[in-house]
């Protein structure tokens, strides 16, 4: 008691050295601490800034691809040009090539711009339209021959320069040395926009359509290559999932500790790190040169990507098999199940959510992979035809989304860059959806034992 009441004598003050005031060394150390912390935060900030600028570049450059400029024209479908006999025989009508439709369009353009004062000669008017306009007109007439003889309103694709002008990509200065369009055309377009006959609308053809030749970026779409990717992913799913799961079950549940098992394990971990281009070489040599499978076919792409995805799936499947507690196996064996039954009836179903998550992530990785596809020939041609059936979907040459994006990025016309960015948006949307599904699956079914 007495001790407590004694007021403690104040500590003897050493001159100028309070614990409360930092000396030079402490200051230095604390400053170093703050700096270090700032470096760390800075590194994360820079990383996130990169992410933001990447996404910004994608959205900024890609969104214009989803709208397209169209010119609305009243085209007189003259009977004497399209159906000379007048009996609406479909074979007769088909004989008229797109050249037969060009004069009609030219005529319609002259009529439409008759009351607009412009320096553009009548002959040059067609430059504001896409080269595919006549083909579009022909397709519609063949689909509906009754239109012949009437004046019908058509919405025709504008040329990529006009489209670029409305999107701000093409300016009058750019056109000074451009033989495809003149500044005078743009003045005309300005007037037509005010009249409402030229407008930008949402571009379903980009999402669903086929690729177009080098000179018609305005007509290019990613739909066909999306189908190519889809068929490839089917191959990957139906090969990589069963093989990967079977391999993991063997390695995790049955494999004895021996050289052979070690060899497999070393191989799997090495394959996971082999550059994807090497798998492309393998695909080229094994599937195309040796097995003579058709070049550029989704089935070859799928097989190559399967080999590439297998290690990913095996690694994640093994992790989820490992996460199932041994008590489950013991209980199954205890009531008389065989080893095989305990695995297939009890362990595998419990590990399934984890396996599916890993598979989806592996598929997403395969969907975005480009390099192997270049080597098995999925670039360098125009994926302009929809596959006509399931077998042709697997076996006919096609492109795939990432290969299509690469193809567009390689083309000379900058109008294709916009398509490439737009394609990336679609690709990333797919990847995002797959990853979100994987995360949700994991959240919903994840079990802690």
């Amino acid at each position, binding site marked *: 008691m007495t001790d407590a009441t004694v007021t403690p004598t104040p500590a003897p003050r050493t001159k100028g050295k309070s614990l409360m005031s930092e000396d030079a060394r402490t200051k230095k150390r604390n400053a170093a*601490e703050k700096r270090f912390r700032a470096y760390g935060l800075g590194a994360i900030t820079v990383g996130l800034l*990169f992410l933001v600028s990447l996404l910004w570049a994608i959205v900024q450059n890609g969104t214009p691809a989803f709208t397209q400029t169209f010119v609305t024209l009243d085209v007189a479908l003259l009977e004497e040009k399209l159906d000379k006999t007048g009996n609406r025989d479909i074979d007769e009508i088909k004989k008229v090539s797109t050249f037969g439709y060009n004069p009609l369009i030219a005529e319609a353009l002259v009529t439409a711009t008759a009351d607009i004062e412009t320096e553009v000669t009548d002959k040059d008017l067609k430059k504001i339209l896409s080269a595919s306009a006549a083909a579009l007109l022909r397709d519609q007439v063949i689909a509906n021959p009754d239109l012949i003889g009437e004046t019908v309103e058509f919405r025709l694709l504008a040329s990529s320069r006009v489209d670029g002008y409305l999107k701000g990509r093409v300016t009058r200065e750019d056109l000074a040395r451009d033989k495809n369009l003149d500044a005078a055309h743009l003045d005309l377009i300005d007037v037509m926009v005010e009249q409402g006959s030229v407008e930008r609308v949402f571009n379903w053809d980009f999402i669903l359509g086929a690729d177009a030749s080098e000179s018609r970026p305005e007509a290019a779409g990613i739909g066909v290559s999306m189908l190519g990717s889809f068929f490839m992913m089917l191959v990957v799913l139906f090969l990589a999932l*069963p093989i990967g799961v*079977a391999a993991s079950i063997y390695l995790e549940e049955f494999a004895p500790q021996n050289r052979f098992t070690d060899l497999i394990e070393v191989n799997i971990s090495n394959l996971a790190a082999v550059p994807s*281009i090497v798998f492309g070489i393998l695909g080229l040599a094994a599937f195309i040169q040796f097995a003579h499978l058709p070049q550029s076919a989704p089935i070859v792409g799928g097989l190559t990507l399967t080999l590439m995805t297998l290690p990913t799936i095996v690694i994640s499947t093994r992790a989820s098999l490992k996460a199932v507690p041994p008590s489950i196996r013991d209980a199954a064996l205890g009531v008389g199940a065989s080893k095989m039954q305990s695995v297939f009836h009890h362990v595998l179903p419990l590990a399934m959510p984890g396996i599916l998550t890993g598979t989806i992530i592996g598929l997403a990785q395969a969907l975005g992979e480009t390099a192997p596809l*270049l080597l098995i020939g999925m670039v360098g041609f125009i994926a302009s035809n929809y596959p006509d059936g399931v077998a042709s979907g697997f076996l006919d040459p096609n492109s795939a989304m990432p290969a299509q994006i*690469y193809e567009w*990025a390689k083309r000379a016309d900058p109008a294709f860059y916009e398509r490439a960015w737009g394609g*990336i948006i679609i690709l990333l949307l797919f*990847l995002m959806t797959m990853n979100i599904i994987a995360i949700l699956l994991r959240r919903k079914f994840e079990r802690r034992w």
Partner: protein
Amino acid sequence: MSNLLLIAIVIVLGAVGYVLGRKRALNTAGGNIRDLHSLPVYYGANTAMTAVVPAMGLLLVWLLVQPMVVNNAVSGMISDATIAEAGSRDLVMSDVRRVADGLDLAVANGAMSGAEASNLDPSTSDVRGILAAVGVALGSDVSSETLDAAQRYRGMSGTGSIWKAVVVIAASVAGLGIAYMQSHKDFRARNIVERGVLALLIFAASIAILTTLGIILSLVFSTVEFFRLYAASDFFFGLRWNPSFSGRGGGSELGILPLLWGTLYISFVALIVAVPLGLFAAIYLSEYASNRFRSIAKPLLEVLAGIPTIVYGLFALLTVGPLLVDVFGSGGLLGVDWMAGGTAVMTAGLVMGIMLIPFVSSLSDDIINAVPQSMRDGSYGLGATKSETVRQVILPAALPGIVGAILLAASRAIGETMIVVLGAGAAARLSMNPFDAMTTVTAKIVSQLTGDSDFASPEALVAFALGISLFIITLGLNVFALYIVRKYREQYD
């Protein structure tokens, strides 16, 4: 008989076997399941398995062997003069195959009858025209020798496929019969089926080995072929990369050194970007960040790792490249004229660095977290600040692991393709200027194999030699990295 039909028949036989086997086993037990050794399903599965698996194996072997046998027999018929004229035996053989396939197609389409096709005379009928009509284009008119070979080819293939069908179906039926006879209530069907399933599992696991073997074989054969056409010393020590574009070979300089230099330079730039950023990010996330911050920032950083490389390639080509030219190019912000075009070592390296940040950071994060807490506590107890602890205790302890992570990142950078194909340029040069366009091993693999050149020319075969160099370099780096990481892990276990 087409292969698909054959497979369908075998599968149907398997299904029939399933039903029969199950029924017979049940009958022998007088319908009482408890008297059976295994569950009824296993008897069915055993019969189906015995009917399908050997037959399918036989079919597979037949499909692999028959073309070889037929090719050998037919190519013996071709005279040396024809081969000398066409350039190589392979070219003549591919013509023969095209003619044979075309004739088969013509018969299938009904353009001619089977007898007509077999008795074609090249001197009287226009074989090329007939084949063109069914969609098979030939480079030249068909000589009588080629046509004879093609007829022989057709004949052998035809007989072969009839025998194939007979043998495969016989094997399937025999398997079915044997297993059906075996199905008895005391037959240990489950054990047999489980052994079969285990064999299937082992086969699936060996696909990893087969893949590696496939990679090595496909690379080695073509590389040996390449070194027969082009001196190995010129490839490994040549200072110039200058393939001729004629496609017929000759006059090409195919030295790997400029490509290797470009690869290493770009990877170096990428690591300069990725390692400090990734390492500091990992340190901050594991030592300083609150749980909340960590749970947001870490997944966001890892988004960078999930973005496909084609996106980074486009970003390099269309955004970063022009931006760098604006800064370092002529008339740029800095007033220096270092950079001529958007594609350069710097462009590709920078973008690749961004891609590698999450790779370095999550690997280092794991390693830093693996350092035991007691070491941190000891350091704090001695009065060290957090940064001193990180620098003097944690980093030295985690160093082998971090070096391993950096090596893995380097291997990733060396093997990266799309970013360099789009962002680094196409010219191979040995230059020190990071703003020059250079090219890499991977980019040249793509350009040599996607061009028009003939696959037998050194210009195309060089891609396989490049591929094997790349494979060995990345494999070596990975093995070395894993060795270091593994050695480090043993310290605390």
